[in-house]
């Protein structure tokens, strides 16, 4: 298959999946990312199909993802006043959410006797992929696994995050956005941006602040604990 065709296959699968998602009343388990990923991952495991061809063919989507992250400056600017107004509560909640997320992931990994490289790859689970790869390299993790963990974490947060937060009684966009951006980085932020401008802005701020703070602090903490 020509690499360029993978772009159209991905686009077609996404369009069909998105239509199904909307037609069924936005059921979380029919999230439009889920079905194309399952189909394409299965196809990639077939003999003669090369992942590298798929990656070449869909490089445009990678560039557009980077552009979309930069575009989050707009909701961030438009809603800066709402975030600034609650600066103290926002900062403390971000630190608490970040530490508890990383801490619980490591606790489970050590309890289940996961190898040190897997634990180091899990430590980056809530920060955006480019940062996670850099930090994983710095603390002895496996960069490819770190990237996979980050993406799956984001998918879990995007799918279960909104209904879970609703069950917790969270009914305002600022709180939901902060939680989705802190726990689910870019994919959580994408979900938030699709729901409201304020939710997207809060998630963008949380993702950037959590990612940058983790990138600076985690390598230091990791080297101190040996």
């Amino acid at each position, binding site marked *: 298959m020509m690499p360029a065709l993978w772009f159209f296959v991905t686009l077609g699968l996404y369009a069909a999946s998105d239509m199904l998602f909307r037609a069924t009343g936005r059921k979380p388990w029919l999230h439009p990312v889920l079905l194309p990923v399952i189909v394409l991952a299965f196809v990639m495991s077939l003999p003669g199909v090369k992942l590298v061809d798929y990656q070449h063919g869909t490089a445009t989507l990678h560039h557009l993802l980077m552009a979309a992250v930069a575009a989050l400056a*707009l909701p961030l600017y438009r809603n800066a006043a709402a975030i600034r107004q609650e600066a103290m509560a926002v900062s403390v909640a971000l630190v608490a959410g970040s530490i508890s997320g990383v801490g619980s992931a490591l606790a489970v990994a050590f309890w289940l006797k996961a190898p040190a490289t897997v634990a180091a790859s899990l430590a980056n689970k809530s920060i955006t992929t480019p940062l996670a790869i850099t930090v994983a390299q710095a603390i002895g993790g496996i960069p490819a696994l770190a990237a*996979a963990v980050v993406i799956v974490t984001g998918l879990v947060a995007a799918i279960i995050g909104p209904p879970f937060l609703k069950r917790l009684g969270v009914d305002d966009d600022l709180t939901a956005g902060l939680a989705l951006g802190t726990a689910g980085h870019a994919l959580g932020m994408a979900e938030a941006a699709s729901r409201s401008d304020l939710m997207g802005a809060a998630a963008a701020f949380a993702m950037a602040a959590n990612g940058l703070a983790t990138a600076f602090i985690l390598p230091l903490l990791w080297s101190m604990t040996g």
Partner: protein
Amino acid sequence: MKHHPEHQPEDAAEKASVVQSVLGVGFFLGLVEVVDWGVRRYGLNLPAPVLAMALLTLGLAFQKRVPATLSAGAGLLFRLFPLFFIPPLVAIVAVMDVVVRSWAALLFAVSISTFVGLAVTALVFRGLRKAQAGRGEGTP
């Protein structure tokens, strides 16, 4: 093909909106490329898109307005945001051997910690907000 005259202004507005969206997306793509070049040039250990987002936020705050082109471009990108995550998720097949070997640790660590992270962030923020509001009400 016949054109209804009453549809012409709508068609023109739609075309202008499409052009603005495409130009806006082009701007964001260019911005990330320029920032990426700067990151490589100066050996900064930061992701170019996050840095581009921070710089653009500062730029907008300085300019005190959002150009319509950027607004249209961002709108288009946000509508398609989930689509852009499909290739990195498919790439997980490249590390499938490690995933299969440590599946239990990965599954439980990722799911439990995501619930914990979501709940702690939301509940701490809500608690502090309530406490601040309470203090505000108590202030004479």
